[in-house]
């Protein structure tokens, strides 16, 4: 499953941002529109690097699909950053 939503929350001692829900699934629209260009660039890079383009696509797709569930929380000196990918 590809990531659908990213939740970003930033807090400082003086300011607190409410949880920002970023709809990652909407990125499919520009990605599909630019897919011929992306594919051409990827193909060029793969030929230059002598790597199978299908293998490259498979690896990047598997990375993309395994991103949901990733959590990052950083807290320092009263500042907090929280990123979660669903």
């Amino acid at each position, binding site marked *: 499953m590809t990531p659908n939503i990213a939740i970003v929350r930033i807090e400082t001692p003086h300011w607190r941002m409410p949880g920002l*829900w970023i709809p990652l699934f909407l990125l499919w629209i520009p990605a599909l529109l630019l897919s011929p260009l992306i594919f051409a660039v990827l193909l060029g890079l793969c030929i230059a690097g002598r790597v199978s383009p299908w293998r490259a696509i498979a690896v990047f797709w598997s990375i993309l699909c395994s991103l949901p*569930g990733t959590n990052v*929380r950083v807290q*320092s*000196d*009263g500042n907090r950053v929280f990123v979660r990918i669903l």
Partner: protein
Amino acid sequence: MNENRRQILEMLAAGKITADEAERLIAALEPEPATTVGEFNGKTAGNGAAPAKIHPKYLRVLVEANEKDDGPTTVNVRVPMQLLRAGVRLASLIPKQAHDQLDETLSKHGVPLTLSQIKPENLEELIDHLEDLTVDVDAKEEKAKVRVFCE
């Protein structure tokens, strides 16, 4: 997309619940982590049934540092094991000519690792061993604590 998750998102879009409530509901949908890594945590089907090993789903990295100038710093990262598997596969995309240069540079810096040896057949073995990994680093002088474990 999971049906329950879709319903929560629809409720959020309709304004029936707040973003925080939706986050809590989605978090509640996620399966409970294993209580003890690598240990049996289920019921046996009979007297002679072998215990089922629970495979952890996430690698957790916790860092707590107490620096003099910046105060306490905490980093808490949860990475899905599936992402590790996919990440290791990235090594297969490195061109062959770059492998030799990388291996040479790594060995120069005291890391005797041969990237070309990372193949799909020993990838699973690598991940399996990682599941039993627990690293605790407690540097009292630096006032830093690092914990790496699977859950």
